[in-house]
């Protein structure tokens, strides 16, 4: 089970406000860092904690910070990535809604460690109601001397500003986010140069996810060493998992890394099992971009070990039989879910969200959507399935930013694990035209003795 680190106080009434937050130990970490620790010591603690980026890539935060160009005489920036748009992910929103000061605290300490005096929170425009909450929290922190000039009487000054996006998934990619923050189209930049050298306004910049930054405060409080004792192996600490789909208790859960997937899905403390007493069919465990896995492979690895909620365990088997922890957007599908329709749905998403800058992504996402639309609507051909695999392969790795990969992986993995379902759609156009969700006849066929799909949890 493990303890909570981020959400310990979330149920306390009024914790969103400064006074209650402060009364429960809030801003102690800022005091500790700014008064007792040097810039280097804060960095060392974050390094020691083993904290990895919670936005999806899982890159070690301390290492990312160490890349920041400190020799440049330009101002440095910290940008908080609150453009949470990955389908299935709603943890940052939850965190900002209930614990805005935890994020502010993390921003102050991180800015101190990075030598930053201006920090922007780039939040997706749809979260308009959170803009007010964050602005209020910033005002409160300023009133109490935790923001502004000479914080706590030290020489350190910091301003935090909230900047709304306006509806573009691609702005979650850090360089697209910076472009958008500069008032431009959200076109990802060509790398190198990396933001650590040339980021916002051409200045050295660090971009971190909301959850990552919110974790910095607790790390300073408890010490990096103590934080790293949580979790398992290189997946240290806790992770916010946003669970949704066909489960009894959708919501945001803080889990200690290393929790068995099976426990997470079926324990009453977390998802509480599959809704309507149905069977588990498949899971996308890290937001829509990561490979989908059928029930047997999400619960156990091919080696027969129990699969755990950690970066390493979920990736066990690479893309042949594994997936990724990603952003922690945990989407559960029950026996009635139509994998083809869901895959088509997701390709529609990526087609709509591609910025259109580079050719493989611009053309490829649209092409995959068209092919999948045909298959799902009873106009597919057998050769379309292999064509999809080929198109996905031609996109993967050949694009400017990871959106191309994010669009290709769901398609490739769905076909890899549920090819029969695609074939069924081609063979039975009349059936699939009318039944979208819960293709019952299809299930009956797949569940037959020679189904060969390996979905043993049915």
């Amino acid at each position, binding site marked *: 089970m493990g303890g909570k680190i981020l959400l310990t106080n979330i149920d306390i009434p009024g914790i969103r406000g400064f006074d209650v937050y402060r009364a429960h130990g809030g801003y102690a970490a800022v005091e500790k860092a700014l008064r007792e620790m040097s810039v280097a010591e804060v960095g060392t603690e974050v390094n020691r904690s083993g904290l990895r980026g919670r936005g999806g890539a899982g890159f070690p935060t301390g290492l990312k910070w160490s890349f920041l160009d400190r020799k440049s005489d330009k101002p440095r920036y910290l940008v908080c990535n609150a453009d949470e748009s990955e389908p299935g992910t709603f943890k940052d929103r939850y965190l900002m809604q209930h614990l805005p000061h935890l994020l502010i605290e993390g921003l102050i300490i991180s800015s101190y460690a990075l030598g930053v005096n201006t920090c922007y929170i780039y939040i997706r425009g749809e979260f308009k109601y959170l803009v007010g909450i964050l602005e209020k929290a910033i005002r409160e922190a300023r009133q109490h001397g935790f923001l502004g000039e000479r914080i706590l009487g030290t020489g350190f000054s910091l301003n935090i500003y909230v900047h709304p996006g306006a509806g573009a998934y691609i702005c979650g990619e850090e360089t697209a986010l910076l472009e958008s923050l500069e008032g431009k189209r959200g076109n990802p930049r060509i790398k190198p140069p990396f933001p650590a050298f040339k980021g916002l306004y051409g200045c050295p910049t660090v971009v971190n996810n909301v959850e990552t930054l919110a974790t910095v405060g607790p790390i300073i409080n408890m010490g990096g060493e103590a934080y790293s004792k949580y979790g398992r192996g290189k997946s240290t600490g806790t992770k916010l998992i946003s669970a949704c789909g066909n489960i009894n208790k959708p919501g945001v859960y803080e889990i200690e890394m290393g929790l068995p997937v099976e426990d997470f899905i079926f324990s009453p403390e977390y998802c509480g099992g599959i809704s309507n007493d149905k069977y588990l069919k498949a899971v996308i465990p890290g937001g829509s971009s990561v490979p989908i896995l059928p029930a047997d492979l999400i619960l156990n690895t091919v080696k027969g070990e129990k699969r755990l909620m950690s970066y390493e365990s979920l990736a066990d088997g690479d893309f042949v039989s594994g997936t990724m922890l990603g952003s922690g957007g945990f989407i559960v599908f029950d026996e009635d879910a139509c994998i083809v329709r869901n895959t088509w749905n997701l390709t529609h998403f990526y087609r709509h969200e*591609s910025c*259109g800058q580079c050719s493989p992504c611009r053309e490829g996402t*649209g*092409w995959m959507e068209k*092919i999948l639309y045909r298959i799902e609507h009873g106009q597919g051909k057998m050769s379309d399935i292999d064509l999809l695999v080929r198109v996905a392969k031609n996109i993967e790795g050949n694009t*400017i930013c990871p959106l191309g990969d994010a669009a290709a992986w769901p398609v490739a993995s769905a076909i890899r694990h549920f090819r029969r379902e695609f074939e069924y759609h081609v063979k039975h156009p009349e059936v699939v035209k009318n039944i979208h969700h819960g293709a019952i006849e299809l299930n009956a066929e797949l569940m037959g003795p020679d189904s060969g799909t390996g979905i043993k949890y049915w």
Partner: protein
Amino acid sequence: MKVTIDNIQVEVEDGSTILQAARKIGGKVVPPAMCYYSKLKGSGGKCRTCLVKVAQSSAKDPRPMPKLVASCSTPVQDGMVVQNLTSPEVIEARKGIVEFLLLNHPLDCPVCDQAGECDLQDLSFGFGMEETATEDERREYPVIDIGDNIKLHMNRCILCYRCVYTADQLTDKRLHGVLYRGDVSEISTFISNAVTNEFSGNVIDVCPVGALTDKTFRFKSRVWFLKPMNAHRECTKCSGKVAAWMFGNEIYRITGRKDQFGEVEEFICNECRFDKKSISDWVIDGPRHIKRQSVISANHYEELKKQSVIKPIEGFMEKQE
């Protein structure tokens, strides 16, 4: 810095890109570039046709790079080993890119003014497949004017952004840009009646396909029937050094002078390009060099020997009758 590309070593300056190194070697080693334009700051990285494999990152770090990289925007390291045509992976990826670029392209070369000098045609010839795998309808945009003299066929556009950079960097007020996003992105002025700028005509020269064409030359002639000649005039706005495309003694169109990589040597002004079509406007310097492989080289001679033919005997024809 020493770099090896397709087993050929070359020495380049610090900060060069792989593509620049390859261009220094020249020939087949040079990856095709549809969006990069050395004279336009910020261009490149978008079309992905110049993807290459880095088999060895540097002398210090002999590991290969995990993915193919865009040669136009990847700086070289000392001791880097690059594979272009020698890597089957690169060829495969490039074929895929060409397929993507042609996916929504109308393939209207028979009625396109760019045919014969189109980078996408050349690329398809080099890396394209014989048949298309798509059975879906292609995107269709209306044809619009960008100013008085430029036609925009968005259907043919590959969104290289070159024209946007050109307008940004050459004119004082950019009037067109990339609008919308994803596979419905388009180059447009957004509002009707946008007027042009003195250097706007250069977008025609930088366009790698037939998306932006010269309205003063539209449908006048196939480019391979014309002879490109170096010509110059006194011009207050630009260098006045152009390529005049001639048929007999008539000038059909004026363009910038393009180098071996298809880039103009100097940008020219709209007056030279659109308004000076009379032979008396120009001093003709002589024929331009055209690669033998180009379709434009048909009937094109760099020099004409002195005419030496036997003259018929005077009055001979009359005698016969």
